[in-house]
């Protein structure tokens, strides 16, 4: 497991310019989507790609902690749900100000990550996967019991968040660019973190935690900080999701959602960051396309996932690499 993970993240200096061209292309395409959408069913296309980017934010955080930290979290959807509930609950009390709800969403995700991380990070590998799942399920059931905020049925967000009282997110196109901006900021933040000293320690701990500890690093604290960062960004994704769907529900935290996020980062290629964006787009667009063709789309989608695992190691990006005849990532 360590070997494939190790091979999947090369340092930037070793990357070709073409590999760097891919993130640029991704963001360029995302920036141009609204112009293309103007010729078609605009609100549908905008909505779909907004969703793609919202999930890409969550997937980026998961890719950071999972692909670079080696910590496979099966409860990542909980952070998204917590961020979404922050918006929903604050909104239910009549406050729509982004300067309030956004920090609260980030902080709530970070605090939940800090508390659960303290327990989870004591365990390793499969046990870590399962204990993160356990905490995810706890968050799911707590959300379902919030009777004043809709319980199992969820809660409608009546107004999208405002900035200093201005409803800047009401317009779908403005909201789209707001989400794109968030994605861009998160992407560059993670790129910076990954190649910083902190990121190197985190990756070192993924390869060999004992060795890093021997070198004098407090691995547990580094991993916990990483986990908290991922939690906060998950909260951000939840903030965006609540605004995008104008609805909050415990279903955002279900373990299937966490599974979907894992599938997204695997689809894109683990430990590449921009792979998380590609994966989120691929997953949601495949789902959308197949869903448009037939009601039984899952009969195609399921086997497709199996085939991707069997024949496209290193995700879709790895597949592209191999087709081009370059050495694969994993």
């Amino acid at each position, binding site marked *: 497991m360590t070997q494939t993970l190790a091979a999947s993240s090369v340092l930037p200096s070793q990357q070709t310019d073409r590999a760097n061209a891919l993130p640029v292309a991704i963001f360029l395409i995302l920036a141009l989507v609204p112009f293309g959408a103007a010729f078609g069913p605009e609100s549908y296309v905008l909505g779909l790609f907004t969703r793609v980017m919202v999930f890409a934010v969550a997937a980026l955080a998961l890719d950071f902690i999972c692909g670079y930290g080696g910590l496979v979290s099966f409860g990542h959807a909980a952070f998204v749900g917590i961020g979404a509930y922050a918006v929903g609950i604050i909104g239910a009390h009549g406050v729509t100000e982004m300067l309030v709800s956004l920090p609260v969403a980030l902080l709530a995700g970070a605090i939940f990550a800090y508390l659960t991380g303290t327990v989870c990070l004591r365990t390793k590998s*499969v*046990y870590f996967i399962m204990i993160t799942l*356990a905490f995810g399920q706890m968050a799911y059931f707590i959300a*379902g019991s919030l009777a004043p905020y809709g319980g199992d049925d969820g809660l409608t967000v009546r107004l999208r968040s405002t900035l200093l009282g201005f409803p800047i997110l009401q317009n779908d196109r403005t909201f789209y660019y707001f989400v794109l901006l968030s994605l861009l900021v998160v992407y560059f933040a993670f790129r910076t973190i990954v190649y910083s000293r902190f990121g190197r320690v985190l990756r070192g701990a993924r390869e060999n935690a004992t060795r890093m500890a021997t070198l004098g690093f407090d691995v547990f604290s580094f991993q916990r900080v990483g986990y908290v960062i991922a939690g906060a960004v998950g909260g951000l994704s939840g903030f965006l999701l609540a605004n995008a769907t104008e609805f909050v529900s415990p279903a955002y935290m279900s373990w299937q959602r966490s599974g979907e996020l894992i599938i997204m980062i*695997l689809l894109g290629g683990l430990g590449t960051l921009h792979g998380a964006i590609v994966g989120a787009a691929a997953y949601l667009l495949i789902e959308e396309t197949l869903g448009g063709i037939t009601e039984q789309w899952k009969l195609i989608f*399921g086997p497709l*996932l199996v085939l*991707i695992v*069997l024949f496209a*190691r290193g995700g879709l990006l790895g597949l592209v690499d191999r087709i081009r005849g370059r050495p694969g990532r994993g």
Partner: protein
Amino acid sequence: MSTGLVVVQILNGLQFGVLLFLIAAGLTLVFGVMDFINLAHGVQYMLGAYLAVAFYALTSNFFIALLLALAAALVFGLLLEFLVFRHLYDRDHLEQVIATFGIIIFLNQAVKTVWGAAPLTLPIPEIFSGSIILMPGLLYPIWRLVIIASGLAIGLLLYVLVGHTRVGMLVRAGATNARMVSALGVDIRRLFMIVFGFGTMLAAFAGAMIAPILSVEPGMGDTVLILAFVVIVIGGIGSMRGAFLAALLIGLVDTLGRSFAIDILRLVMPPSPARTVGPAIASMLIYVLMALVLYFRPSGLFPARGR
């Protein structure tokens, strides 16, 4: 909270625990010996239930239907092993998760396509229908007792098989260090197939046995799968004894929690909040238990792997 109610709920908890054990047993072996995360284990349980219903429609005899369902589930499981799983044994856990997740998506939709989305039912076999008098004024359905008994019998059978036969010895050795067993000249792939086929049949058996008291519907395997994972993680991956004890523990805690959480909470808080908080606490109880166990014993109660 009368004594009778407590007894009934303890029996229900045991029955649920036994059911979880049947599913977790296969899962822990597959996981422990092959280091393979099989999320599709839950759909094999669902398939067992559906096959039992289908064969019952053909034969009108529960026991023949049960046998046919087990045979069909075995064939299907081995087919899956041959087509997909065996290519995944030396892959990442993550890749195994995604592929078997794909199989879940496919099979859940497939049963919906074949049998429809509406829940199906299976009648309780004639000779085990009705209830038995446990105490004066306390009736308990016989079929649930049959499930408990058959689960305990299979537990005993597994105890003998795993603890006192040559294959069982290899399985235990495989759970401790599969590579070493292979190096000693054991055909580990064949061992994998035996373990896998057996695990599949146990899950299908659980599905078929529970079908008469539960509605058979698509997705019924998903919740059970997560619970089975909780069981094997608490018990310690690869440990049959751990799976058995953890399954009973989870079954009892979950059932008793759901029945009595509100009553217990009412002792410490007013009735109205107790009614809202109670169910949430009851659903969370097993996850809290799991988090606690893993906090103090990071590899579960009975770790099998000798690393």
